[in-house]
């Protein structure tokens, strides 16, 4: 098939965009899952969509392609462009503009036969193309009806079609903002396309634009949650090309604004489990779940002991903090006079933990969580101030100390196990 800059399915380009944007260090030959032809086509499409954001560098292994975007400088997420590249036929676009032109006048409604007459007249006047058959037009009208673009009403036995209601759009500023920070923000970007260019009054710091790639999955999960339905997830397996299917009840979307990941928290085999959105390939809607409210209540209670997304201890493998499944972490931070902002930092970052001010120069943090290993990266950000630390999970305690020693060695604080006093 000849090259086309538009695409039929979003899935394949999603992988490439993620690879080029997050990694960007692989050469053509390392994209072994797909054919070389496919790689060339996808790369060319991305160049066409993203223009100057695409970069190349030559290495000994070949040419590496990457997407370089400082998300603090861009006002609109460039990755949304991929969502605006859906392929279509000449018939699709012709019918689209003609149907909305026919149904343009305020409140006017026509039956299918009148719409067909108007289409035939238009096409006979202006085009040599054959007209459409009634079943194609009916199918298109039905599709638009399901999307809310066209409304139907019965007049006796006849079905009438009219265009959906127009509403006043919010301001460009509002859409500029929420299209970047709200879930499924690409929908806001679609709305912005309907307004005259302008805005650009907002910038975004700590802005993870890769969420754009998971908007479709997220939307399907929201639909399931709003209807309290179970779903079948198709997930990427560990091996290339492997797909794993799991039946789950979606309960909540967990978003990390510090790590860039989004997760589905879902009931899986009786326990809440987290699934990364970027590992979900497809969501198939299932049956309504009568227990949905109960499962969500259970998650609400559990969240008091979930630091990030892990519920590892819930199955009873933890249990060293006095409660089944919970692990305890406790550390004391020291700071000088004038550095009380360190205590404030603990307060704003403590999540489900507790903070106690011990005296003018020390604060204690305590948390009981299902998986204390999730706290370790955050605890490391206090290195240089940790007076003492205790993990109820002894294996994790050893690992923390071992890692710390490795860091001391790495930066020459100790050499051969001894302190470097130089």
């Amino acid at each position, binding site marked *: 098939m000849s090259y086309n*800059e*538009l695409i039929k399915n*979003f899935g394949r380009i999603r992988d490439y965009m993620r690879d080029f*944007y997050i990694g*960007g*260090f692989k050469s053509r030959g390392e994209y072994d899952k797909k054919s070389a032809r496919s790689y060339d086509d996808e790369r060319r499409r991305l*160049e066409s969509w993203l223009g100057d954001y695409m970069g190349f560098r030559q290495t000994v292994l070949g040419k590496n392609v990457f997407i370089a975007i400082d998300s603090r400088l861009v006002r609109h997420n460039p990755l949304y*462009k991929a969502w605006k*590249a859906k*392929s279509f036929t000449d018939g*699709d676009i012709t019918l*689209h*503009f003609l149907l909305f*032109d026919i149904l*343009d006048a305020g409140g006017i409604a026509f039956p299918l036969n009148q719409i067909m007459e108007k289409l035939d007249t*238009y096409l006979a006047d*202006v*085009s040599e*193309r054959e007209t459409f058959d009634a079943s194609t037009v009916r199918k298109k009208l039905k599709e638009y009806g399901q*999307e809310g673009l066209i409304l139907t009403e019965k007049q006796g036995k006849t079905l009438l079609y009219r265009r*959906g209601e*127009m*509403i*006043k759009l*919010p301001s460009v500023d509002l859409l500029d*903002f*929420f299209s970047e920070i709200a*879930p499924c923000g690409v*929908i806001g970007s679609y709305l912005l*396309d309907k307004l005259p260019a302008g805005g*650009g009054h*907002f*910038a975004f*710091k700590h802005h*993870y634009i890769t969420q754009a790639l998971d908007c479709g999955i997220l939307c399907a999960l929201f639909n399931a949650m*709003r209807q309290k339905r179970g779903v079948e997830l198709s997930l990427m397996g560990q091996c290339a090309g492997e797909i794993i299917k799991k039946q789950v009840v979606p309960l909540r*979307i*967990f*978003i990390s*604004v510090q*790590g*860039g990941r989004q997760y589905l928290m879902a009931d899986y085999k009786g326990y809440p489990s987290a699934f990364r959105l970027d590992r979900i390939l497809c969501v198939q809607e299932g049956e309504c779940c009568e227990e949905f409210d109960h499962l969500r209540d259970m998650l609400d209670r559990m969240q008091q002991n*979930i630091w*990030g997304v892990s519920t590892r201890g819930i199955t009873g493998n933890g249990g060293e903090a006095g409660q089944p499944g919970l692990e305890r972490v406790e550390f004391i931070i020291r700071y000088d006079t004038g550095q009380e902002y360190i205590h404030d930092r603990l307060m*704003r*970052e403590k*999540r489900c933990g507790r903070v106690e001010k011990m005296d003018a120069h020390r604060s204690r943090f305590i948390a009981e969580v299902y998986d204390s290993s999730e706290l370790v990266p*955050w605890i*490391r950000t206090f*290195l*240089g*101030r*940790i007076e003492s630390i205790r993990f109820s999970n002894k*294996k994790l305690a*050893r690992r923390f*100390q071992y*890692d710390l020693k490795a*860091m001391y060695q*790495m*930066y020459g604080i100790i050499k051969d196990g001894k302190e470097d006093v130089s």
Partner: protein
Amino acid sequence: MFREWYGAYYNTVAKILKEASGHPVTRERVREIIREQAFLESVLTVEPALFSGRWPFLSPDGRSRLGHVPDMPLSLLQKRWLKAIFLDPRIQLFECGLEGLEGIEPLFVPEDLCVFDQYADGDPYGEETYIQHFRFLLHAIREHRPLAMDVANRRGTTTHMDVVPEYLEYSEKDDKFRLVTSGCHYGRIINLAKIRSIKYVEPGTEIWEWAKNHKGKPVFEKESVVFELYDGRNTLERALLHFAHFEKRAEHICGKRYRVRVVYNREDETELVIRVLSFGPFLRVVEPEHFVGLIRKRLKDQSVLTGFLEEGGEEDLPRD
């Protein structure tokens, strides 16, 4: 959600037909609109399709054949998304109404989401003064009009400054808005929640002259840090995503080792230091020397506080 009618081609054709409904459009103008609205190679498809009649909307002289200016109603999905964002507390900052969305089910509600690592001291979006300041600033930014402001400082007093407002910067991590300004040699970035009062500066003053002569956005001093990454415990993927919002470059050195350069604003250096530390022994800063020194200082301080503690066993650590 992935539908052709939201796509760049449909929007481009609508824009061309809108313009062609008033007067004929030339091929050159059509190409210009395609370049503005669609992708680099779209001109190869859209222009011939329109002028050959394959997409039968334009007459040979470049006029629209349609009876009306193209306009598509909002889809249910778009309405449901709008309804959902109207449940967000930050919506109060904008002057807008909900007309036309009665009876529409939101795509999501706040209970469907949990942003689990957002800081707890976010801005007060419901406070009347904060809302007034936000709207005032947005107006001033649109007008590029200088402001006189009193801003709370760390000493518990207020600092007065005359600034040119450039744009608002929002951080999802901090859940705060900051005003980025120019024309003032201190306080280029101002927390909105710290603003005590704002008013417009009268024309003819020094800051007005400055605003007239400086139209560009403020430029921040850039620095870069290079670290070597050892891909144990899935660090490669975690770290590259973690630092994804920066301009960066990653290279594979050999085996599980990678070299990553991250470009950052100088004012964010302390934040970057602790973010590098959070990856433990899996990231080793190799340059610049002063950044290495900042990491080393923290580790040295830590070693003084707790000494060198018991050893453990761990297999997946970087080894030379």
